[in-house]
């Protein structure tokens, strides 16, 4: 069974790291990544841009909001990685997905770092 690891942290603290501190954390994480890659367990991994870069589409009312989807009544249930030409394009795709899967919201967030992993299934 595969698990998604949704990494929650205090964003303002993480964004306050100096480049050196950030690099150090990433280097340490990379050691763990390498180990998991050797074990054939490492799937796609992403680091998202800050929540300020996020846009949320509330499907039922077709409401586009700036920022992350923070309603505590709903939980994050999965994620897609899709190549989009622009934010408008991304919203289009989200609306299409929303038709197939109504309710809740899609948070559309540009990806900062994409590590495709070793193709586990």
């Amino acid at each position, binding site marked *: 069974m595969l698990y998604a690891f949704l990494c929650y942290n*205090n964003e303002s*603290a993480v964004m306050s790291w*100096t480049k050196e501190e950030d690099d150090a954390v990433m280097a340490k994480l990379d050691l763990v990544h390498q180990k998991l890659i050797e074990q054939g367990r490492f799937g796609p991994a992403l680091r998202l*841009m*800050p929540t300020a*870069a996020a846009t949320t589409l509330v499907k039922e009312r077709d409401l586009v909001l700036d*920022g992350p989807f923070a309603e505590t009544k709903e939980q994050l249930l999965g994620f897609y990685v899709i190549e989009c030409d622009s934010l408008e394009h991304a919203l289009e795709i989200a609306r299409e997905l929303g038709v197939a899967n109504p309710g809740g919201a899609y948070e559309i967030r540009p990806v900062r770092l994409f590590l495709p992993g070793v193709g586990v299934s």
Partner: protein
Amino acid sequence: MSDIAWIDAALRAARPEAVAALLRYFRDLDIAEEAYQEACLRALKTWPNNGPPRNPAAWLIFVGRNAGIDGVRRKARERPLPDEAALSDREDAEDVIAEKLDGADYRDDVLRLLFVCCHPELPATQQIALALRIVSGLSVPRIAKAFLVSEAAMEQRITRAKRRIAEAGQRFETPSPADRPARLAAVAAMLYLLFNEGYSTDRAEAPARAPLCDEAIRLTRLMLRMFPAEPELMGLMALMLLQNARAGARFDASGALVLLDAQDRAAWNRDMINEGLALLDKAMRHQVRGPYQIQAAIAALHARAARAEDTDWAQIDLLYAALEELQPSPVVTLNRAVAVSKTKGPDAALALIAPLAERLAGYFYFHGVRGGLLMQLGRREDARRAFDQAIALANTPAEAAHIREHLDRLAAEASAQKT
């Protein structure tokens, strides 16, 4: 990261919100700062043993407020206690604070704290220094180093700024919805000043000044997180990121300034560019024009061009024209002239800047751009005179060296023609 490094990062991150909330309680910058310091000391004592609190800012506000009240009581004989209204919300417990941190009160606290720093009676350099000291918590020696002045001078500058703010008074009220946009605009302007102060044109100074850019970006991120639907804040954030992305390509190995056209685009920071482009994309959806968005859009066109010759100068010309309309300024027109020279030729660009000669007579870039245009037209003697004026007005050795190169080239061409 070690415990201490983690605590340090958490304190640094929580500081703007914590000091801002404490300022609301105490309405006095010094008391708010002392209370925050006291809370930090207690954090350093208790966090390593008890583990970090779930919300460091709320913890610091709660502890700092109690410490501040104690401090005020202790000093009550020396100075009168602020009235009850000034010590508002004393009943808040830590978890209530944590809950409220996401709410409008605390959002306005941070805006207020930054707004207090950009008091119109303070000169720009004092505004920035004060924000770095109070909001960012940079030490006086570090700020002094960034501004290339002595510690004593910087200490004095900050003390003087605080005194002027205390004398001017009346900035601690909660902003009305109508006031908020004006406050946001003042804060945005100050943050951009801070960024530009750090975006040095001198490589020797760059390492000392770069933290100013980082701090401007960090504070703008904070503002954006609190006001996530403000297109101009998104624009400002995008502008800073797109400009800062080029920092690593702005100097060659000898320390000479490398202009945009000649920069190694592979050395640009892709993460920053991508984030800047994403924010600009978001901002434009609001369809509310603004100067930061337009400037970010110009920076984005440079960032999107794989090679200098791929730059969409016609679009840049249009964007500068839009900026001129919103914010008429001879400097904007001068920048537009560079775009015009690429699309309509140096003659058209010279005609555009001719009316600026008087107003920009003391401006390095005016003479530099003019000299460059004259050189393109083969008017060597006029170009040399313009460059002579530029070199006399250069702000840094790197700028002077850059103009010197043009002068040397002109001299070489002239002597080649004679022989």
